[in-house]
């Protein structure tokens, strides 16, 4: 198996070379080949880490099952986004220089996310989170419009503030115990002897900092604006891959302390943050008219569901829901791109007759809507069911009532919006039908593939994969 060996540093070095080449070599074929080679590298590294899981290759960077699951998802999402980016640039008429800059930043961004997934030191996770902000900013700014400038400023500024607060939270752990080592393994070893007040303060600060990455309260607003102003494939990455990164930062800390006397407090905190995020999402989903913001607020809801799942102890459902949401939302953001190309507006009420104008795209919208609503045959039905059943079996079962009520509100609002797009005869005049090129139907294939994964992972995944994801969601069994 020696030939499979790929040290994390080797991965980062090769990824840096590819990003550098993408920035300097501007021919379209070279760009495509370099992106394909990066996806192969990412896939290869994921496979290597799967085989070498829990082997301590570097002091603070080595993969466990959670890292491998998230890296596998990132490989799929990264490949899909790179492909969609190719279509986006071709249709948008970007200059080779701008495409080169975008692709180099995309590769660097994905690499930094891998760094977050495999880091086993709080300081390192923090450094990678901050780097992901800076690289995401380049991607959000891609179109250089007023709105992308505004969104980028808000994103960088609020993320920087949030991450500085998170760093202060990490430093509070230095007050909580006498050791100066902030690696997860050391923190786990000393979790029971820490000063609980300072640990609580630390977790609170870290949750605030990571909230902007995961898209939950309190700092979700910059994330919504970024997803609105960025190109749709970047919005998809912010919704899927970046949410996974925020989740990792939060879940790593949770898993260190979940086996201590802090567990009830932690669960309460996560339930409260999750429920508030679902509430905020429900309010905005009811009134929003902008298609991309609708999808962005839906992310806030699903991130809230993930936190509720963590809070009630349904960790398997939390990890699986995170993955399923990432795939479904990516497909929907890609489909939004078709909607915009047809109707030339983000206004969801300006669309109509989508079923007759773009039947292939309508299928994506219907399946995507079912996934966001957590309805069969989509896998999110299973994860939401497990979450609610687990919640009902805990002392916090009363939380299930408002959460279920908000689910109903969101299902009603989402179906109203999407049904309007699909079937409304008020808009969507005949002229639009002529503007749908045949290639658009072909472009929906990756979207159906992503939605297929959502169905397959939820209902038909083999026992070995289910067991692996269950191991990924077990709280902190590093040793």
């Amino acid at each position, binding site marked *: 198996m020696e030939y499979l060996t790929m040290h994390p540093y080797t991965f980062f070095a090769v990824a840096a070379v590819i990003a550098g080449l993408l920035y300097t070599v501007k021919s379209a074929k070279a760009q495509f080949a370099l992106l394909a080679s990066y996806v192969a590298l990412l896939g290869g590294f994921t496979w290597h880490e799967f085989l070498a899981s829990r082997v301590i290759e570097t002091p603070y960077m080595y993969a466990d099952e959670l890292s491998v699951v998230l890296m596998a998802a990132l490989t799929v999402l990264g490949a899909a986004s790179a492909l969609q980016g190719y279509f986006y640039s071709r249709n948008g008429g970007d200059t080779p220089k701008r495409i080169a800059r975008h692709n180099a930043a995309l590769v660097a961004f994905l690499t930094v996310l891998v760094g977050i997934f495999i880091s086993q030191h709080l300081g390192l996770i923090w450094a990678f989170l901050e780097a992901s902000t800076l690289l995401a900013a380049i991607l959000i700014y891609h179109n250089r419009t*007023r709105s992308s*400038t505004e969104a*980028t400023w808000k994103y960088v500024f609020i993320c920087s503030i949030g991450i500085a607060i998170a760093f202060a939270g990490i430093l509070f752990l230095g007050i909580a115990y006498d050791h100066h080592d902030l690696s997860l393994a050391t923190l786990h070893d000393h979790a029971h002897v820490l000063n609980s007040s300072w640990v609580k303060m630390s977790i609170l600060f870290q949750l605030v900092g990571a909230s902007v990455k995961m898209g939950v309260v309190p700092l979700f607003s910059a994330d919504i604006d970024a997803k609105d102003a960025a190109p749709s494939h970047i919005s998809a990455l912010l919704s899927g891959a970046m949410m996974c990164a925020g989740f990792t930062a939060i879940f790593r800390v949770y898993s260190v302390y979940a086996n201590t006397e802090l567990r009830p407090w932690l669960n309460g905190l996560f339930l409260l943050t999750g429920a508030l995020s679902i509430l905020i999402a429900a309010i905005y989903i009811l009134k929003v008219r902008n298609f991309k913001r609708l999808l962005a607020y839906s992310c806030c809801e699903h991130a809230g569901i993930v936190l509720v799942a963590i809070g009630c102890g349904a960790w398997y459902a939390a990890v699986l829901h995170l993955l399923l949401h990432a795939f479904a939302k990516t497909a929907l953001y890609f489909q939004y791109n078709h909607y915009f190309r047809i109707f030339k507006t983000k206004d969801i009420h300006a669309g109509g007759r989508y079923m007759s104008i773009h039947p292939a795209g309508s299928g994506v919208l219907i399946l995507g809507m079912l996934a966001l609503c957590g309805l069969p045959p989509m896998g999110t039905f299973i994860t939401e069911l497990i979450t609610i059943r687990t919640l009902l079996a805990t002392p916090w079962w009363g939380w299930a009532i408002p959460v279920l009520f908000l689910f109903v509100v969101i299902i009603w609002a989402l179906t109203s919006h999407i049904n309007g797009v699909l079937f409304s005869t008020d808009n969507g005049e005949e002229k639009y039908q002529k503007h749908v090129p045949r290639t658009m139907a072909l472009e929906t294939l990756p979207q159906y593939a992503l939605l297929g994964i959502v169905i397959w992972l939820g209902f038909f995944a083999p026992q070995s994969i289910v067991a692996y994801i269950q191991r990924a969601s077990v709280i902190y069994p590093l040793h």
Partner: protein
Amino acid sequence: MVTVFIILFVLTLLYAGMADRMPTLVNLLGVQGLLLFGTAFFELRDVDMMNFSFIIVETIVVKGILIPAMLWRTIKKNKITRETDPTVTRFQSLLAVTVIIFLSFILSNSIHQEHLKVGYFTASISAVFVGLFIVMTRVKIVTHMIGYLILENGVFLLSLAVGNEMPLAVNVAILLDLLTSVLLLAFLVDKVGERFQAVDVSQLNDLND
């Protein structure tokens, strides 16, 4: 000697609370960088040479010289001379900063931890909250940046207060992140100025529900 630096650092916070001229605020950041250098120089003599040199470069070169120089360039390019129409008056601002420092002092003295340095902790917590206060009450985006950098200085001081030792690679990554984020924010201030013909936060309202 370190106590003198800490007291001077707290005084710069009071001054930042009152100041509305941009050059004054930028100079205050430079002074804070130098004070952090002095504090680290006298405090961290027992750490290894590599880490010590790194922290010295971080404070004097980055926080004391590079970042203020970048901000000078930004305010000159965008012709920003002073903070206009803040949401609180100078007196109210000074009062609020004084209250923040006082409460931080009370909090620091209520913590009974052997290895916690109370003076550092007071100054660092004060800087974090004064930074946030400046971000919340000022309207120019450059002032927001300055508020963020004051907050960052507070976090740096906090790391001295609690004595956490990060691996050198992590320290380098943190410094690079800080430097790049300031560069990026300065670049974005220029772009906001070009596209919105203003550098007020109130103008940034294209994106809404």
